């Protein structure tokens, strides 16, 4: 049996896996965004219980390694929701929870960065709580929130690599598989790293550009 060496075929295989990485990132970002928004609303809302619950949720999510979270979801889903759950859903659910915990906290910070006087002014115009939120606060918070949100997207893309431990074939797992067959760890993982870099670096740059723009505009 001859051992193959690293070839274009492998690059192609990695490229397909990279699509899965992107897909998983998209699931995590969209799911995490929706869930995170809800958690954030609860976190700053009027209900004491909801506020505490949201805060506990955030602390647990931020205080547990994603790896453990993924294991828990992977086995937990199977236990509670029955078998046959594809790995992508487990991975997607794990990353969604992870992203929601962080996004909720990031966005809370952005909303609280809108001066308190804006809330008051809106209140004094007799707007309802919902109107205050949607018409006055959110449009302003959105501007502040964009750079850190894009920045966090990079974290999500990178952290999808952990889905490999529950058998989901994305970029990192693909790298491991290729390495199984050709045993050139250095080459393989360098190429894998290059793939991640190609995805993440533009996002990082974009986030920085947004941040600079905001700083200039905010001055």
């Amino acid at each position, binding site marked *: 049996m001859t051992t193959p060496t690293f070839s274009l075929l492998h690059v192609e295989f990695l490229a397909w896996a990279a699509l899965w990485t992107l897909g998983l990132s998209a699931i995590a970002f969209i799911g995490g965004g929706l869930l995170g928004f809800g958690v954030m609303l609860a976190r700053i809302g009027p209900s004491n219980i909801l506020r505490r619950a949201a805060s506990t949720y955030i*602390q*647990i999510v*931020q*205080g*547990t*390694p*994603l*790896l*453990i*979270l993924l*294991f*828990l979801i992977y*086995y*937990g889903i199977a*236990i*509670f929701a029955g078998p046959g759950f594809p790995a992508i859903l487990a991975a997607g659910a794990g990353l969604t929870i992870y992203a929601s915990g962080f996004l909720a906290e990031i966005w809370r910070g952005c909303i609280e960065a809108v001066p308190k006087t804006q809330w008051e002014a809106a209140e004094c115009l007799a707007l309802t709580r919902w109107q205050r939120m949607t018409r006055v606060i959110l449009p302003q918070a959105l501007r502040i929130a964009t750079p850190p949100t894009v920045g966090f997207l*990079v974290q999500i893309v*990178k*952290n999808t*690599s*952990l889905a*490999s*431990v529950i058998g989901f074939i994305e970029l*990192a797992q693909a*790298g491991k598989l290729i390495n199984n067959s050709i045993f050139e*760890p*250095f080459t393989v*993982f*360098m190429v*894998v*790293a290059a793939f*991640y*870099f190609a995805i*993440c*670096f533009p996002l*990082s740059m974009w986030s920085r550009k947004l941040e600079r723009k905001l700083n200039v505009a905010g001055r």
Partner: protein
Amino acid sequence: MTYTFDFSALLPYWPDFLWGAVLTLQLSAVATVAGFIVGTLCAIGRADGSPVVKAIVAAYVEVIRNTPLLVQVFIIYFGIATLGIRVSANLAAMIALTVNVGAYTCEIVRAGLQSIHRSQVEAAECLGLSKPQIYWHVIVRPAIERVYPSLTSQYVLLMLASSITSQISAEELTAVANRIQSGTFRAFETYIVVGIIYLVLSFVMRGAFSAFAQAAFTRRRKLGTTL
């Protein structure tokens, strides 16, 4: 649901959990200290170094921040061996974590350095302080104090991320969990327990960091405000 929970099966393993947690803390402690030094030096280099130094630091920071830790761990562990240097998994894990957190520290500290106003440096220059003295007394120390909360969060995240090094045989908490669950076949329970241990560790770590801040930053202790 056909699954019955049984946490008692894990009881005999408490020393393993304990040692796993100890190694996790050791890894994080070493990487925190080393990463802090590396990151701070890099931040200074990036702010004030020659163009070559600046470019090297920038490349280091961007490459690390835009690739997953998992891949970095593999490259360092196997890459170093391919070069003919054999390091233990724990050492490789420490190096990988240091390299990783060093890049993040660099970014955070750099923001702190930039927040020190030029006039502070001028004032120190006018008092006749030498460049290293200015850096130490007027730039780095207040800068660190300012970004201390961000650093704390980063190092707690590092501790959590160290779970990845189980992949290269470092016997830290997650590795222990994987081993115990395959011995007891109580996967879900094991990961719940380990998740709780990580939570506790992160609280402990935050506590330690704020205790350190209380001791190190006298101004904060006295006035209760941040710089």
